[in-house]
């Protein structure tokens, strides 16, 4: 009798686990279906400055600023980061708390999590809202492809790349972008504010 009782509760437990697993799969992969042009349709993983691995959609639910860069870049990449910070400084505290920022390295070989963490610390950005990530090298062309970024590694290890800051809405659709560096782009700032409300 006790044996029967055990197997019944085992069945119940397994059933519960299965239910939970199927629910969590439905939630995570398809909770609400993505717009067809959402960059979150691209199934790649990225590793952040703490070594945590997620999908590109780690900030789904928030408007996100995206840029592609590399940490050893001498001039333009620091400007990219300071331009994002300058733009953020034009937002209210409440707006800023809602916005997320992800910078994606085009140099995953050299941009280790430690290197990315150092860079974040050097620019004193908030790790609660920002992440600096790298991808698998084999996924980088596709990531650049969805963001319309062009890049090329040079023999000396440096890169040529186009600089764009891209605004994603809460579902990962690209709704605005700017190529202006060193000052805030008024139209881009308006788009950010609109996406936050």
């Amino acid at each position, binding site marked *: 009798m006790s044996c029967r009782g055990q197997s019944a509760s085992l069945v119940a437990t397994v059933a519960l686990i299965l239910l939970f697993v199927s629910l969590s799969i439905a939630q995570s992969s398809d909770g609400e279906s*993505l717009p*067809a*042009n*959402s*960059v979150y*349709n*691209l199934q790649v993983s990225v590793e952040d400055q703490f070594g945590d691995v997620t999908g590109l959609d780690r900030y789904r639910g928030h408007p996100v600023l995206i840029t592609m*860069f*590399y940490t050893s*870049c001498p*001039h*333009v*990449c620091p400007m990219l980061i300071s331009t994002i910070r300058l733009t953020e400084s034009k937002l209210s505290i409440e707006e800023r708390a809602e916005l997320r920022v992800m910078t994606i390295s085009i140099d995953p070989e050299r941009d280790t999590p430690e290197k990315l963490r150092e860079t974040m610390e050097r620019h004193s950005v908030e790790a609660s809202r920002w992440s600096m990530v790298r991808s698998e090298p084999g996924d980088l*062309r*596709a990531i*650049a*492809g*969805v963001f*319309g*970024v*062009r*890049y*090329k590694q*040079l*023999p*000396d290890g*440096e*890169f*040529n*790349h*186009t*600089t764009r800051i891209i605004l994603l809405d809460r579902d990962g659709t690209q709704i605005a972008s700017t*190529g202006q*560096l060193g000052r805030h782009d008024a139209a881009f700032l308006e788009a950010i504010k609109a996406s936050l409300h």
Partner: protein
Amino acid sequence: MRIFIVLFVVVASSAGSAEHSFSNDFVSIPGGVFRSVIPEAEGDNLVAVADFLVQEAPVTNAEFLRFVLHRPEWQRGKAVSLFVDGQYLSAWASPISLAPRSGPRQPVTQVSWFAADAYCEWQGARLPSWYEWEYVAAANRSVADARALPGWRQEILSWYSQAGGEPIVDVRSSPENYYQIFDTHGLIWEWVDDFNAFLVTGDNREQGGADQLQFCGAGAITMQEKENYAVLMRVAMLSALEARYTTRNLGFRCARQGGMEK
């Protein structure tokens, strides 16, 4: 489940055998050093290419049909707009059938970079790099690098000047080149893995303008070998594309790392 497997086999074999009797083999290409139209660095246009394998011919409609039957998410109408534009495979009669004007042996065109990349991955392969493509496309029928021969250059230029007008013929309609591969010129344009590596400024404009800020690192690439217009046209075309774009004359073939037949 059993029914599903049976169906799967039937679909795979019918698409493979009836319409497409030859296979698109990977040919071993010995690496080497050559002069590229896109220098890696200013003043140095010699580029080293490692041994690799590349498909004999561009991927055909029949081959691509087999892919979309196995991977329905790449069928027209199912592929998401992040990855393809509105003209994706639009010449086909339906998402899973070809049409008279896009026959089984014609190269598949109107495919995006993402679709081409997914196809090659499905084959356990990848798209060739630009340098790999340029390297094999430098050959004529008898020598590995025929680019200095005026006759050959004239021949391929005459195709580039009319590209777009003529209907696309079957793959392998012209003789193979020195490396035993077909259709590097004269049939279609081809995607390469690093199509978005081109940062071309049309002419050598003055440094320091607003455009210069677009580029991090050593500044924009300027193209060498200006007399080699045919290949430069490819570069110009690729540099104007986004990864989701498709065009009527743009297809692809796959490549693999390594120096021997699989």
